[in-house]
């Protein structure tokens, strides 16, 4: 490229920035904790961003910054987006909670959407999350049926309510179809670290697990299971379809697109309001990836029936009778867990061995 053309394009870009791109476009910013190519959590949020672009075309402009550390760096990035004229900013990690509220206080005209948090200190902050535990119920059902060793491995990221809820939901539904089932849990203290995830998967397989569930975002456990042979896995956050039909027999898919489109439209139409959204399979925020032929047909039918019941609300993933790990009652017969209890869940249900790390 010649110097003159470079300069010309620079001038053109500056001209565009100054003039034509004025206020008629709605600007939507996304702050990501990982790289967009992680194949899991951040990848799915970015798919949501692309869906917003596809939906509104020239009416929107989206920007994103990836690999943003939680803490002061995220606060700076959010502020920068707001200064650059963003109308709506999605902050997509739990650790962005306080920074999001700090920045929202300084920019009352900018709308903020914080994923997986609970703090809405200002009228321009909303929170949203997905009921992944509904998907875990289906995984648990399949896992309980598929295991021959009756040992199910579980790669936990951080011992926070979100993850504990998933473990409990999977356990309850595995136990239902297979009373002998036992869970082995390894905490890796990361959301995305292929090396650590692979090590955890191998350890679980060495301990006799023939089903490995993961609450981490890389495909490393899938690869480890493939290498070991005969071990069942499930895709996490995204479909991980490259490991189908086996070892990956199904998946939980985060589908943020409908929510992102709806909230962007609300900003465009001036109807945006602060709210807390917690959607599951029914609203389409939690998707269940194709259940492959590796799963027996009757198990698949049951799993799909379970999915339908969770979607239409006729069945709740936490329905009593259920006890806590220490034997104290959690839910009476027929009682379902309320959202407050679920949101702060910090105990195992009865039957899971081991302690939640403190």
């Amino acid at each position, binding site marked *: 490229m010649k110097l003159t053309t470079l300069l010309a394009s620079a001038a053109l*870009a500056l001209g565009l920035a100054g003039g034509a791109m004025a206020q008629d476009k709605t600007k939507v*910013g996304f702050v990501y904790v990982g*790289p967009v190519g992680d194949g899991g959590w951040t990848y799915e949020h970015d798919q949501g961003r692309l869906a917003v672009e596809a939906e509104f075309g020239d009416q929107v402009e989206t920007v*994103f910054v990836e690999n943003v550390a939680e803490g002061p760096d995220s606060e*700076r990035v959010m502020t*920068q987006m707001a200064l*650059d004229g963003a109308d709506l900013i999605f902050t997509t990690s739990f650790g962005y909670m306080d920074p999001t509220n700090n920045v929202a206080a300084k920019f009352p005209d900018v709308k903020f959407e914080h994923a997986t948090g609970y703090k809405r200190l200002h009228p321009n902050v909303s929170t949203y999350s997905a009921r992944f535990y509904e998907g875990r119920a289906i995984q648990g059902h399949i896992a309980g049926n598929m295991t021959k060793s009756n040992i199910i491995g579980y790669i936990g990221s951080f011992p926070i309510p979100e993850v504990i809820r998933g473990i409990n939901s999977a356990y309850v539904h595995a136990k239902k179809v297979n009373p002998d089932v036992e869970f082995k849990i390894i905490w890796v203290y990361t959301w995305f670290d292929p090396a650590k995830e692979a090590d955890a998967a191998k350890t679980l397989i060495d301990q006799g697990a023939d089903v490995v569930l993961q609450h981490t975002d890389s495909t490393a456990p899938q690869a480890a299971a493939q290498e070991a042979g005969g071990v069942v896995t499930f895709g996490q956050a995204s479909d991980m379809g490259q490991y189908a039909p086996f070892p990956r027999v199904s998946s939980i898919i985060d589908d943020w697109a409908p929510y992102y489109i709806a909230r962007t439209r609300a900003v465009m139409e001036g109807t945006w309001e602060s709210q807390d959204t917690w959607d599951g399979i029914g609203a389409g925020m939690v998707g269940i990836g194709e259940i492959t032929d590796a799963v027996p047909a009757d198990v698949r039918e049951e799993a799909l029936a379970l999915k339908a019941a969770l979607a239409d609300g006729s069945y709740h993933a936490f329905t009593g009778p259920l006890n806590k790990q220490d034997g104290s009652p959690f839910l009476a017969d027929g009682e379902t867990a309320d959202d407050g209890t679920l949101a702060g869940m910090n105990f195992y249900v009865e039957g899971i061995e081991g302690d939640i*790390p403190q």
Partner: protein
Amino acid sequence: MIRIEARPQPSAVMAYATPVLAVVLTMIFGGALFAVLGKDPFEAIATIFWEPIFGEFAFFYRPQLLIKGAPLVLIAIGLALGFRAGIWNIGAEGQYIVGAICGAGAGLAFYPTESVLIFPLMVLAGALGGWAWAMIPGVLKVKFGTNEILVSLMLVYVAEQLLASMSLGLLKNPEGFGFPGSRNLQQYPSAHNAEIIAGTGMHWGVVAALIAVIFAYVLLTRHRLGFAIRVTGEAPRAAKFGGVNPGRLVLFCLGMSGLLAGLAGMFEVAGPAGQISIDFNVGYGFTAIIVAFLGRLNPLGIVAAGLLMALTYIGGDIAQSQLGLPAAAIQVFQGMLLFFLLALDVLTNYRVRFGAAEVA
């Protein structure tokens, strides 16, 4: 056959010119990288280096330079003392974490009591925590001759586990609905490391960094101990004959760098970060190693280097958002800086000879 051989008299001018040259080379090759990625290189470079200081929103970014640069400078000053004496503390990240835990812990122990004594106590606790963590490789080296590079680095991972445990257990916010992470110290006035003048980015960590720079400068140029540090690094045998006690020097250098790293962690957790959380540390302790070398292990150079690194981080994030540059490209850009610096250092101290080796 290509060989390198030591220059008898490395150019003194080059020693100071290399950081500037490295920056220029990084801009040229980084620009080429951005061009290959389909972005306008001039715009990208301008966004990274110009926008934060002189752009439309410089009023916001300039204070951010202090916030991002202060921990880097504070840690790098301590590291430089050791590096000059050939004592390699690679574990500043761990000392930074432990300093933050101790500092925050000291403050939270008194929650919700308000007192002017709490913040000074936290400063002491943070400094002590970092110092103690650095004393582990120090004492092991002096007593058993272990390698401080390995021990201090390994202790980073231990500190990270400790951080996770604190976030989930002892320091967990009782009102946090079971989520990990401590109370936010920004909402606890006695413990909050607030800006001294609002909107300037000037918090106590920045003040501490400036004091550390002056202290290190005086130490190295005017004090006997500074002389001992320099002699030990440049001529260990001469130092021994000159009566330098190597064990005490190891303990001083590691302790000092640990103390400063601990302070950096404490000021960060009490101010910009606000809370102890599992992902509290973001690599300042490792980046500070680059800062120390980029600044020629010279206190004043470290200030410039710290601000430059802060600039590439802040400008890099702006370039991501405004130009759609991937984060990895920014990281490569930052990596180039160190690469070119080291390469130029080699060429300053050695020369490349082509042809067969002469018979001695």
